């Protein structure tokens, strides 16, 4: 479970870094637009949102495992 916690934190960190890179790189030129909105905004906020969805799907499918929680219910009765 520690590994999965770390994977989750790393995923969140990657999204954070992506967000700030797109803001800082594109913020100075407002004339750059996409869908009528400033490019920095579309890449960071809309793009970041879409990235978060892709990232969480990859995180869950590739880095998180299923296990039985009811096993632990039995353990409790032994305590």
């Amino acid at each position: 479970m520690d590994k999965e916690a770390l994977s989750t934190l790393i995923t969140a960190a990657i999204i954070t870094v992506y967000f700030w890179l797109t803001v800082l790189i594109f913020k100075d030129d407002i004339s750059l637009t996409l869908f009528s909105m400033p490019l920095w905004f579309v890449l960071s906020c809309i793009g970041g949102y879409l990235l978060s969805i892709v990232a969480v799907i990859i995180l869950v499918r590739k880095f998180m495992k299923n296990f039985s929680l009811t096993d632990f219910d039995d353990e409790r009765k032994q305590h």
Partner: protein
Amino acid sequence: MMNVNSINLQTFIPVLLFLFILLCIGFYAAQSVKNNSDFQKEYFLGSRNLGGVVLAMTLIATYGSVSSFVSGPGIAWDLGLGWVVFAAPQIITGFLILGVVGKKMAVLSRITGSLTVIDIIYKRFNSKTLSLLLALVLLIFFTAMTVGQFIGGAQIFAAITGLDYKAGLILFAAVTVIYTSGGFKAVALTDAACAILMLTGMFLLCGIIFDEAGGLDSIMSKISSINLNSEGVSRNLLPDADGALPYTLLFSAWLLVGFGTIGLPQSLVRCMSYKQTSDLHRAMIIGTIICGALMIGMTLLGVFARAVIEELPQNGTDSIIPTLIVTKMNPFLAGATLLGPLAATMSTVSSLLIAASSAVIKDIYGTFLGKNSADHSGKIRTLSIITTYTVGLIALLLALFPMDIVAWVNLFAFGGLETAFLMIILLGLFWQKMNTLGAFLSLGAGSISYITVMSLHINFLGFHNIVVGLFFAAVFAVIGSYIGKSNDEKTLKTFFPHKY
């Protein structure tokens, strides 16, 4: 459109229907409590039966509150896209807490038989005093937050239906408290219904804004022409609102509404309430999709509203969204849209109320006063329900007769909760060396530093004060853990079995 000075009966149709449905859901869910022999497990945790979809919905509905629908978009109307940048960290909120502590909380809850967050903390640190302090912190902040929600909800309710503020407040507050007394499952299921209404409310608002303003191009060109800075650029198009939102503040938002949300007890308790790991995984994905859409979407709609409402209304930015709904929508649609913020309010309140009840009954009465034995269980059933009603009534009274001090406490409730709980939970769950002294010092130093800087309006380079609170909470957790002695081996073996 609508006559703003009289009661609009048509707005009531969707509202009364919704309130009725919520009561029905609450009544249905309360049957599980009646039929279950383990009252507390069912009342406070739904017997750990939540599926993935409901888990995601209840997390989002609990987290999203009236400010997501009213004050947030209002500020966005004023400052522009920079406020979306402030809200953006919430794209990770949907999966973060579940992924980081979700599984550990669920496993440990089962092993230790814990039904509340403070319960798990008690099993880890074995201090009744710590439990009492955390329970009091939780109660004070939750009550203040509930009052804030009640007031915000009542204001928009009155604005849209025309009904008297106090009457509207009593109506929806009463419905909320009644169905909350049905227990955790009632809260979770009504939260799911509320999450759906939050989404429809957002889509209805989106529709009316685009309809009135004539499309994205038209909206953006209107926005480009206002609040021009010295270079002729609209501050509403700049990430830092031309300095109104310093980058230090925007960075620290990733702590306040991003990483720090792992410390929110009302979210943490949900990490103990699901049935299987596949439910957790599903909730992470669904949660991310919906939470991001709601938070970014509503804030962005606030930005866009600038093209429809061109001048600041008399009552300030908080009245932008209500004004939009009242002046541009027909009564029935307005009532349906009102359900968005109303659902956000009620779902947040119900979760805070049930958790506050659990703090009184399980953590104070049970753990601190030691009245946990089975002999008391019949009494506990009655006491739990009475407690839910009592906390609800107190909050309602404080909303009917607002006091400045409550509004003041509400300002740092969110950050205060994160400061109090985050390091204790994170370090308690992942760091063997974290000990009871560390927990005490973390709680003390974090809370005192945060409340101090917030009250004195001290600000370091524009960073949000959550940075201060979390910094001291972390540093003193470590200091205490090195000075004091470790927790006993039995506890550590339970919490860190893989290390033995």
